[in-house]
């Protein structure tokens, strides 16, 4: 019956996606009717507004408009940015790799460091190191990630000017090779990726810690110790692999938070990804872009959730046998 479980997950993802389309359509057509914005232009005559309505397809019925919208979206036609007059999809496609680079680096580091710290805390439960790490994770939960980002800029770009405070490459520089450019990008990535990592770290730490605490009390661990295996090896080869599973589920829950972090952290560091695109669209009231990034963020989270489900499915034999 394992195929059915997976098919169910895919179906649920598709339903959620359909919901997003309906929601996005109604939100922007009904609440943000483009004609109300067009009518604000002082020089527009009623005839011109009518013509624009026809151009936008607003003279059709709601169902007709929705069909148009779904068709356009599937063809990746997300409209035209009111600010730059570029196609929204082109702007998104340019920004996406930068967001993936930042989010990917942050998530990878947070998972590695978070689970490593989780193991340390769980094996020293109730000791000073454990208390300190718990306090630290609470702090990173409560502290706004963009504030951490600003402090990172203040410390590492202003007080001790060793790292660039923003953007993705040094502007106006001709790079001699791809390697030189990659190095420059890496240097620009350090601070935003650190902010991202600090934001996500706490959750991974807490999950890994409690998962390890659970596993360490199980009988097979006692047996391994009883047969004389060194404690280090019990932890490394037996406890840790068993405790890793909940991290996969957590990554899925985290994606929403990752998106939020991308928006605020990219804004702080002028990182040219989807988050900064969203931020400029907020300021300019650029609704087509806002609608486009909301759609992409939603699709990203839904797809990432589905991937996490698949990974979980592949890793946990108990789900497969059900």
């Amino acid at each position, binding site marked *: 019956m394992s195929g059915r479980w997976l098919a169910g997950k895919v179906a649920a993802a598709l339903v*959620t996606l359909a*919901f997003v389309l309906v929601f996005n359509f109604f939100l922007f057509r009904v609440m943000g009717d483009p004609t109300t914005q067009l009518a604000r232009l002082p020089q527009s005559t009623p005839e011109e507004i009518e013509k624009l309505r026809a151009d936008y397809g607003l003279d059709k019925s709601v169902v007709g408009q929705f069909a148009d919208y779904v068709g356009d979206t599937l063809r990746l036609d997300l409209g035209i940015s009111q600010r730059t007059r570029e196609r929204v999809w082109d702007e998104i496609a340019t920004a996406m790799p930068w967001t993936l680079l930042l989010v990917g680096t942050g998530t990878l580091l947070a998972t590695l460091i978070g689970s490593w710290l989780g193991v340390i805390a769980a094996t020293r439960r109730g000791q000073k190191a454990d208390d300190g790490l718990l306090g630290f994770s609470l702090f990173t939960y409560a502290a706004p990630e963009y504030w951490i980002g600003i402090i990172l800029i203040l410390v590492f770009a202003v007080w001790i000017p060793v790292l660039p405070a923003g953007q993705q490459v040094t502007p106006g520089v001709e790079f001699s090779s791809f390697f030189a450019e990659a190095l420059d990008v890496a240097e620009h990535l350090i601070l935003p990726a650190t902010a991202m990592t600090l934001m996500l770290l706490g959750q991974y730490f807490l999950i890994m810690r409690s998962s390890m605490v659970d596993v360490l009390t199980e009988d097979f661990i006692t047996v391994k110790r009883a047969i004389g295996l060194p404690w280090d090896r019990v932890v490394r080869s037996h406890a840790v692999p068993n405790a890793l599973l909940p991290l996969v589920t957590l990554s899925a829950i985290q994606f*929403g938070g990752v998106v939020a972090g991308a928006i605020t952290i990219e804004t*702080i560091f002028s990182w040219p990804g989807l988050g900064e695109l969203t931020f400029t669209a907020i300021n300019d009231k650029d609704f087509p872009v806002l609608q486009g990034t*909301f759609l992409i963020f939603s699709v990203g989270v839904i797809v990432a959730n589905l991937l996490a489900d698949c990974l979980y499915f592949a890793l946990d034999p108990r789900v497969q046998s059900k």
Partner: protein
Amino acid sequence: MSGSAITVSAVDATGEAGERSVRELMLGTWRGRFGVGVLGLFCFLAVFGSLVAPDDPFASSLDVMAPPSAEHLLGTTEQGSDVFSQLLVGARVSIVVGFAAALISALLGSAVGLASGYFGGWTDRILDALENWFLVIPTLPLMIVLARLLDPSLTVLIVVIGLTSWAGTGRIVRAQVLTLRERAFVERARALGASDTYIIRTHILPNTAPLIFANTVLIVAVAILSEAALSFLGLGDPTRISWGTMLENAFESGAPSAEAWWYVIPPGLCITMLVLAVALIGFLFEEHINPRLRDQR
């Protein structure tokens, strides 16, 4: 604070001791003392902040981006306003939005969770799908879109945050109601001919309230962070000072590169302290209801 009445009844409903236990819970550990102390301080400032503030927080002067001095304890902003006064006044927006949005979220979440858990069938299926959708959709972009379409104000912030953060509560309430519905005392009431409203009011709700309450405290923390993020992104109420808008102004005016740490650090620190305080109180209530969580520590 009006919260205390809810607190007492919430703990009563768990069947354990009454008010004394709440006091012990909150004042018996350093976590509780920190939480209550900091939250109390900021609630005081939310009410009296503008009276206590040494300066008019909106007053601009030529003394721009000045470091801390005897006259300005935490220096001045890019407009020459007193940072310390803005900080004291800013508590109000965080507290009001945090609690009001969490209240909306609690009401929505409990209503949806109760309905879908108690009535089951198609009601459950539809509400559950709705809940799932809100759980999956990234919240901040959703809030941004709604807030931008509605033109920012304090009410818009409260409604937008409340409307987007109830799904988790709904899920928890639904699960609790599902187990309660099958319990003997509910079945007995139903067999005796009690109406749905009566059963929900006298049996289901009192046994779900502690859970809703603990969860709502944690939502307050999330709502405070959401308000700060939205305000930071320029979607705050333009007529009010909040810690989020202070950070926005500081960042936009280049305070980090001007080394104006007195402008950059305090607002974020206040957000962090308040969220930490609320979250610690929330965790204590959660542990109180579910002692298994405490054993994990």
